[in-house]
């Protein structure tokens, strides 16, 4: 009976009706995340052979010059993962690497583990900050001890693919105005549960593909804190990291303001441990999503002022894209829901089903494109994520959207990020007082 009704509803739809009833999908999501991504990736693939030759030349220069790369890993209570990180560094194709670990007031076994690794020569500098100062101070402490020409910032619970360092440094040798390179992030624990599978697929879509496209368009506005490379002199010029949360996006924005390029390197792969529960994901995204409001809409709102001395159209578009897609178009869904409930309440069950199918097909296309584009770097576990595709519409369209809406609201109305325990209270208090 429901199926008959659904088929009858679909049979009645003209092309204009399709657009009317499913405008968020066709006008925005499909256009931006499937159509545009497809075009950009196609162009990227077309230029592949020429790019490979440039990369080979840059690689030869990199290995001839052999600059020291400082891998800095600030973190709290991450000792259990440090061993994996150290092992992955030992397996790198690029060997001139030093590891600086900053233990930001850990209260578990981390100091003991790190001191042992330091004695074994696997960690070059181990710094213990006590009391804890927060992520920015820990990263800045690491920067103070880093000696390398390039600084690679890693989350201490991450580890790298064997060629990740080489690949994340390479873009600096391709273009002289590159200020930062974002590495690609994959879930280190994709098969730990349903929540991690969803995130693993989401990372492939939004980071591996999404950031590659943004990078190709010159609009990339974030270098993930989990894996990003910088020139040390540029970092020092900027005074390192500012107080977070969201300090990775903040730093990328500061680099853009300096006129430097931010690029994403999809083949520099870092495996990071993702939350294993939906509650954990919600907490993490609540923090991430608030930072969009705090940094993009408050701290760096000057990029929207056309009379500002350092105004740049590219920075303007980059920030606008971020605000529009993350913030405004997030609201469009609720407008759409209200529109359908108020004016077409009887059709809501059909609309839900059709929307689900449309978004699932879009996800399927995205996954197919990602599989082709990222083929050499995909693990068997990543291929098995095909089975998770049908579950992505409720995960991204419902779960993450609710969390994002709540986060934006809380930050706009209540400045909730200043009370986040992610930073020590002493730091949050000053940030709030100063309106940072």
């Amino acid at each position, binding site marked *: 009976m429901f199926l008959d009704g659904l088929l009858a509803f679909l049979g009645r739809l003209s092309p204009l009706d399709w657009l009317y009833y499913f405008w968020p999908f066709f006008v925005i999501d499909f256009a931006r995340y499937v159509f545009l991504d497809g075009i950009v990736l196609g162009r990227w693939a077309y230029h592949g052979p020429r790019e490979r030759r440039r990369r080979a030349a840059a690689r030869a220069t990199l290995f001839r010059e052999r600059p020291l790369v400082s891998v800095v890993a600030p973190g709290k209570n991450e000792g259990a993962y440090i061993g994996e990180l150290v092992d992955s560094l030992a397996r790198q194709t690029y060997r001139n690497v030093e590891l600086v670990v900053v233990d930001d*007031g850990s209260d578990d076994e981390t100091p003991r583990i790190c001191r042992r690794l330091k004695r074994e020569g696997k960690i070059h*500098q*181990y*710094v*213990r*900050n*006590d*009391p*804890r*100062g*927060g992520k*920015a*101070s820990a990263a*800045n*402490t690491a*920067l*103070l*001890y880093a000696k390398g020409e390039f600084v690679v910032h890693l989350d201490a619970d991450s580890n790298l693919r064997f060629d990740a360092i080489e690949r994340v440094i390479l873009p600096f040798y391709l273009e002289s105005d590159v200020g930062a390179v974002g590495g690609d992030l994959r879930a280190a624990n994709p098969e730990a549960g349903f929540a991690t599978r969803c995130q693993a697929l989401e990372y492939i879509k939004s980071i591996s593909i999404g950031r590659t496209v943004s990078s190709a368009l010159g609009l990339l506005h974030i270098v993930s804190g989990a894996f990003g490379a910088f020139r040390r002199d540029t970092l020092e010029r900027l*005074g*390192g*990291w*500012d*107080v977070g949360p969201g*300090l990775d996006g903040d730093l990328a924005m500061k680099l853009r303001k300096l006129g430097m390029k931010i690029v994403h390197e999809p083949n520099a792969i870092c495996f990071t441990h993702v939350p294993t529960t939906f509650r954990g994901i919600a907490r993490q995204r609540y923090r991430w999503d608030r930072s969009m409001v705090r940094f993009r809409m408050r701290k760096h709102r000057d990029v929207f002022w056309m009379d500002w001395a350092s105004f740049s159209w590219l920075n303007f578009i980059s920030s606008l894209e971020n605000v529009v897609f993350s913030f405004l178009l997030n609201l469009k869904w609720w407008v759409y829901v209200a529109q359908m409930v108020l004016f077409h309440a009887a059709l809501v069950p059909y609309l839900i089903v059709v929307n689900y199918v449309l978004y699932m097909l879009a996800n399927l296309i995205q996954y197919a494109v990602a599989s082709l584009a990222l083929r050499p770097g995909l693990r068997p576990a990543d291929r098995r994520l095909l089975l998770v595709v049908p579950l992505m519409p409720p995960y991204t369209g419902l779960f993450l959207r609710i969390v994002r809406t709540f986060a934006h609201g809380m930050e706009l109305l209540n400045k909730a990020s200043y009370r986040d325990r992610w930073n020590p209270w*002493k*730091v949050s*208090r*000053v*940030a709030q007082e*100063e309106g*940072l």
Partner: protein
Amino acid sequence: MKDARVVVQGTAARDPYQGRFGAVWAEDLDAPEAKAASAFLLHEHGSGSPLETLKRIRRHRLPAIYLKPVVLLTGRESDAKELAGLADAVWDMDLSEEVPSAVQGHVDAIRRRSAPLGVTGPEGDSDLSFRILRFMATRASTFSPVATIKAASGFRYPPLEPFLGDGPAESDVGELLHLLEEQRLLAGTFVTRSHACTHCRCAFLNFLEVCPDCGTADLRVDDMVHHFRCGHVSPLRDYVRGGDLVCPKCDREMRQIGVDYDKPSLVYDCNQCQHRFPEPTITTVCHRCHRVTPPEVQILRTMKSYEVTAFGENAAAHGLDSLFVRILQKKVKLFDYAVMKDLVAAEAYRTARYERSESTLLVLSFQGMENVYVELGSRVREVFEELTVAFRGILRESDLLSARNESLFLALLAETSPRQAQRAVERLQEAVGTLLQLNVPNPPRLSFAILPLQEGLDVDQVVADLLAGWAKEALEAGQPGVS
């Protein structure tokens, strides 16, 4: 204490109390009046050196001498504080012409406890650790370590010091006491811990913070300062502007620690190689041997105060085999010295009668064996085990071995010519020499004599002559005396 004797060195006429007390010569402590004296009196300003005299007393082999109470005679102007710590009691004769009752009581108690302790060997008590055990048993007090800059070990046990030699390592009796504790003859109580050089055991170590890259101690250390507002982190000196603290990143003045900033760690900068690091390498430099060594390699000694246990008191009363002899006995059949003399006489008679073969008597002596205890402490057991292996290497099943004490050994090598014995001894010398050189900073010297067995051989006389000759050689070479 009317029969106490003033011990004098050199000219007796220079001793102010000669008229009041009988005198004995420090050079002649074997004299009957010395043995009979109830105590020895040492005058602070007496003839010769009172310390040297005290050492002569304590290093004597007869318990009647080395266990004798020694009272230091002082006056009002006394500056013999250190010497007073070595003697059993101090009698300030300016304060009291008569013997103070406390001194008298102490002397009587020592005499009472010493009385039953007879001589345990033909030439007195030769084993240093045994002599010290007996001394401690008769004093019945706790012997505590005293921190000092005068001994390389950093600690002294003053009353026991006169028993030891004069070298810097010899003044460390702690190792020997630890060895006695391991044998349950002493009970130790924790006092403190002390680092000592692993190479020369000197306690005077300079702990240095050095650069992990170039090893220099020329470092600059500063507080690491974290500015809360902007997350800036750098050494304190970067923030100092005039008399104020100003953040170099955001130009804000920082007023109050804990409110505006904190100091989460230290930062070190090497003035030589410019290396920056959060934790310096800690190393030690020995003031004596100047070796640079990581602290974790150095010896961490536990300093204890010691008392004699009931087991120790029993051993002090009835004698104690030396550790070396005990270890040797487990691996090699050791004959009693008196029995050995009979066996030597019988073998000499047999070879003379049948004239078919020749046998040899080997006399071996370690000079300065006491140093081994003092210098090695509890490790002495391992060295003695190795020495035992070396002894077994030269002895056949038909050979007989006897120890007069732990320094003097007789070996009867049956059916062995002096020439064959010479080769065996050379092997022993090489093995023992290498072992001792490697393990003991001041190794004892091994002397030996190879005697063809002849009828009428007087073992005691031969041994006495050999010991006298070796002692003379040792004296000329500046070595410790022969046991």
